[in-house]
């Protein structure tokens, strides 16, 4: 009897050990997947947490600096080829990265069907899903409201470094910068996120930086041209004109390109 009790106790202890190790292993896997940003849908608590911490440009997303803005192209759920110009556009673009399978995204699909929908930041709304090979086209066709521009492009997800849906990027085409980005659990939160990025001056400062870059480039160009003109003047003053053999000490003169290299 004692032997039986001892044996049972050992078996129960082993089973408890097994269950604990399985639970730990499961937790490790979940943590690794979460850290890798895998999974198309963040649960509500994660969504709320990210929304609270990763909204606007001055701080950028939690994972690092915002990616540069890029034009996007792909196909629509109806099979049209489509390209959306973002760079240089005077109208900002609000990219909404959604999927057909994400439950949180349902609210956005429904919101986009509302004809009274106001897009914050005077932006043009563009929904971006993954490409047809990574997304259910038939499910999308059921979800996409009429008049909503949808671009199916996994390349766009990669270019904007989007790890999961829903995710939003407020892009200023004039400066070519993502001035606000993050995830959100509802449209009001997206509106707050964009309005904050505008109110905080992220859009204005992005445009100022862009203008300063262009001014520096123009000054460099002018300086190069002035330097070139001064060099030409000095050479002419020394009696050296274009084609002068002294400019080509190695060859004795300008080398004509071979019209027939073969």
């Amino acid at each position: 009897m004692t032997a039986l009790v001892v044996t049972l106790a050992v078996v129960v202890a082993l089973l408890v050990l097994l269950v604990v190790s399985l639970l730990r292993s499961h937790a490790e896997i979940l943590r690794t997947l979460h850290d890798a940003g895998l999974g198309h849908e963040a649960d509500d608590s994660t969504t709320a947490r990210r929304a609270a911490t990763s909204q606007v440009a001055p701080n950028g997303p939690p994972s690092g600096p915002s990616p540069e803005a890029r034009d996007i192209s792909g196909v629509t759920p109806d099979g049209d080829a489509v390209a959306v110009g973002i760079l240089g556009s005077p109208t900002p673009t609000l990219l909404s990265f959604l999927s057909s399978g994400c439950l949180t995204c349902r609210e956005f699909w429904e919101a986009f069907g509302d004809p009274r929908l106001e897009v914050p930041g005077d932006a043009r709304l563009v929904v971006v899903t993954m490409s047809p090979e990574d997304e259910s086209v038939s499910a999308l066709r059921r979800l996409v409201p009429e008049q909503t521009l949808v671009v199916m492009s996994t390349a766009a997800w990669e270019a904007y470094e989007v790890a999961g849906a829903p995710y939003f990027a407020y892009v200023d085409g004039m400066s070519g910068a993502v001035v606000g980005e993050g995830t959100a659990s509802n449209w009001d939160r997206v509106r707050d996120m964009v309005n904050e990025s505008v109110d905080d001056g992220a859009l204005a400062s992005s445009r100022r930086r862009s203008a300063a870059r262009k001014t520096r480039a123009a000054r460099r160009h002018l300086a190069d041209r002035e330097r070139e003109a001064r060099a030409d003047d000095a050479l002419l003053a020394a009696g050296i004109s274009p084609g002068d053999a002294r400019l080509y000490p190695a060859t004795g003169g300008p080398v004509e390109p071979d019209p027939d290299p073969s």
Partner: protein
Amino acid sequence: MGALRAHGIAATLPAGWDGRISVRRDGIPDQLVAASGTRVLAARSRPVVHLANFGLPADRGDFGSGAVELMGDGDVFVVLFEHEPEASAAALFRAAGLPRTLTARDFDPTTLRRGIAGQSGHQAFFHEPGRAFCLYVVLGSHARRARLVPEVNRVLATVTFAPSPAK
């Protein structure tokens, strides 16, 4: 740069350009014979291409109604409208190949399908092997055509056609 490719037409767009290649189903009906012997009519689908250096609105007509009203002085809008393949043998489409080097003289405000003050248009008909097209271009400003036409030519240079549309 945005790349567009569908229905046997491809284009590479400069930064900031919008584009769309879609099919319309308003062609002359084809008479098809089903396996049962039943004769049915099915509308042929023909591509229409819209290219623009501004944001294309979702609701727009084949020749840009709904879009041209939004154009500013620096905007251009390009349409490639495919007709029935049989039309490629017609005199109207006898010009071979897409005209890729337009000049300011090619544009005229009276060519516009929807006359909007200040704008200018150009229309040309041509054929590619086995396919008949209309090219229609709208400039946001006739006065600025010398600056805008090179923008159009830059895009037209990238357009390619397959001999027959992809099925």
